[in-house]
């Protein structure tokens, strides 16, 4: 089911309708990688590593989605650090950034890129 585009492999994950606005879900990629998929209120889809780097727990998908000064963020459910949904940058500690994945919607399906 995978397709190669510019060295990226797009993995179809789920029906776009399975994502609720301003919410996240966890997805399991081939090889065991966990991503947190978010749909923001404007319809955009973002994919971050599900691993909360501060606690070592796979929980970012269960954080609250919102914005900080207009930056779309998810707040870790463990200790509330906020991460930029677009870049993975932690807004509370500039030394910390979580891995991001490109994400897109094709024919109503959400796809995540793995490199």
């Amino acid at each position, binding site marked *: 089911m995978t397709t190669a585009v510019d060295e990226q492999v797009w993995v179809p994950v789920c029906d776009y309708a399975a994502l609720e606005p301003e919410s996240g879900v966890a997805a399991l990629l081939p090889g065991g990688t966990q991503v947190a998929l978010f749909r923001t209120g404007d319809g955009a889809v973002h994919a971050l590593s599900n691993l909360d780097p501060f606690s070592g727990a796979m929980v970012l998908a269960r954080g609250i989605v919102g914005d*900080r000064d207009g930056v779309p963020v998810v707040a870790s459910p463990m200790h509330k650090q906020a991460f930029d949904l677009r870049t993975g940058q932690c807004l509370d500690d500039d030394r910390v950034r979580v891995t991001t994945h490109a994400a897109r919607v094709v024919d109503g399906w959400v796809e995540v890129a793995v490199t």
Partner: protein
Amino acid sequence: MTRTLVVVGHGMVGHRLVQALRDRDSSGVWRVVVLGEEPRAAYDRVALSSYADSWDATRLALDGGHNDDLVELRLGDPVTAIDRTARTVTTASGRRQSYDALVLATGSRPFVPPVPGHDLPGCFTYRTIEDLDAIRAAAGAAAGDGVVVGGGLLGLEAANLLRRLGLRTRVVELAPRLMPLQVDEGGGAVLRRLVERLDLSVHCGVSTRAVESAVDGLRVVLSDGTELAAGLVVFSAGVRPRDELARACGLAVGERGGVLVDLACRTSDERVYAVGEVAAVEGRCYGLVGPGYAMAEVVADRLLGGSATFPGADTATKLKLLGVDVASFGDAHAVTEGALEVVHNDPVSGCYKKLVVSDNPRDAGTLLGGVLVGDASSYATLRTLVGRTLPTDPGSLIAPAGATGATGSGVGVDALPADAQVCSCNAVTKSRIQEAIVVDGCADVPAIKACTRAGTACGSCVPMLRQLLSSCGVEQSTALCEHFPQSRAELFEIVRATGVRTFGELVARHGRGRGCDICKPVVASVLASLGTGHVLQGDQVSLQDTNDRFLANMQRNGTYSVVPRIPGGEITPDRLLVIAEVARDFGLYTKITGGQRIDLFGATVDQLPAIWRRLVDAGFESGHAYGKALRTVKSCVGSTWCRYGVQDSVGLAIELELRYRGLRSPHKVKAAVSGCARECAEARNKDFGIIATEEGWNLYVGGNGGFRPRHADLLVSDVDKETLVRLVDRFLMFYVRTADRLQRTSTWIEAMEGGLDHLRDVVVEDSLGIAADLEAAMAEHVANYADEWRGVLEDPEKLARFTSFVNAPGVPDPSISFRAERGQRVPVLLPVPGVPGAGEVAEVKR
């Protein structure tokens, strides 16, 4: 070498002296022997009248002084003689004790006018716990009339006690007005009117000629011939220093009594000091605890070689008597030559204010003193201005709010000099508070209280603490977060009034942006408090913190713990078996909680519904351990089983837990019910705690364990169950509506303007007229309660969210693993990848 200090008398000042000395004497120079006459250790005699709130003497206990090898307390054995040559004292039991230094802290005795019959049975004084016990016992036997001889501060407190004990009460005062020492004629007149509204009769300007036996009790005969029937008589006509020991051993005494001391509090014998009410500092005795404490500090310093001197005393007083504010400070009677009086007198509203100022044309008047009756809100500011030039004309300082465009308190804290005492109870200056804010980083009133102790006693300076915070540039913004300029309480009212039921609409109409992890859970909580259905319905699911979203408590490896409700901590063996079987079958770590229930750890998101199914089928429901909501109502076993119990605490705890279960609130709410005064349920560290009495229930509020422990305060005593439930309904709903986000009841009350008194006014007296509304809101909550776990199990759409992976719903999270410890499973934590200092990171504060 250790020397011996003997302290004669263990009242408040004797106690403070011992504390002050032990705090400073780190090398243990002094061994202290305290010889007390009373059968009990020092207690808070200033708060003696509050003993009648609970009849529980332990509530008057003073802090400290326990388990100190260098302090020996011998009670119930008064000193009868002092031998200054041999440097010994002898007690009533014949015991002799030598001393290197001696401190007389024998206090005062009530003055009983030597009228015929003053010692008849049925005549009492008002100074000790034993006095109050005796009055209470006699009042029970002699219902009807009570007479208090003396209309000063203590006389009015005694009158209030008789009134509370159900007696028709009359006050007889020799002076032409009540509280003649503190208030002037105008203030006395207003005070009298306010007091008479409370069904107390007042006879001023007459003396007591005799107390006589009558057929059905006593008869008090006044100098004008009036005869008052009395079941009992309380004499409260001032005090006299207990200087007899000093007289007998030849120490100098003051002209009007009291042991004569210099500014070092030293008597005519350099080894002997006197402190407190028995001391006549340069001839003058002080009947207030503040000056007594100052003397204790002086003597502690002197004993350790210091050179402290008595700084003079502020005799300013402010009190609330029978619900009436009375304050007096400085030269209240305008005895300074050329003093001018500026008066605002409003007998209709029951408010009298007078400022005494110097007649100096150049500085427009230095404040010399004042009297406030009916409204003493400006006391804290005004008394700190005594001796200073007023910042504005005195008339505007006491004008009613709004009359001059000025605020009620007249003068801002900015006008105060740096060394002004903002908190006079604990002698905290304006500059110390500013330092706490600027240097120590105190950002709110509770922080200032914890740091400086300012505002922790009478609380009258709390509004000034707030002003100081803002004048120091500490943003006292009540905005919830960057998305809502409103406070939580304001948002609550908006949601309640407008009927807006989605976050999207609320933030669009009343806020900005998309929301965040602060405002979203608050709005979800407000919606839940208003009873808008299941917490996971509609857009609410995306507002919930993970605990509320999964109706379980997230643990450090991302799994959850499950706590079924066990109301009151009562559980049958069969139900215990159900929990045990569920825990075993799902491999859950099992632990008994502090709230008398059982926590099951290690459930993954996808396991939660299966666990709930088993529990719900067996009759369990959610315990809301995950919510900012009522948690548990803990109980002791109570009168059903306990030999000491006086009420059914388990039954009440279950009833209350079932009544308030599921109530969403600004923070978690914990409660407990104890079946007797032994308090085995630890109700006084709960948000609301109930302790059984012989007559009913005492309700305490605002207790806390945790980070900042605080004992709950007594709200009402001896109420029946119906009244109790009504008051808890009001208390909880008032809290739900008005507290800030994550503000426990303890800090809510501490930060409240007017504190506990205001809370009592609102909840018990219904001063805001909202009690019926609060009760109705609670009735609606009770009627609409539904178990949240069952709500998920019965709704496929909600159920579908409880999966590990959106693309692999049946696959367990491979990152979660366990190891065994003491026979149970505990989480194996993943290494934390490349985060500097991780593991030390606590919650990020914003």
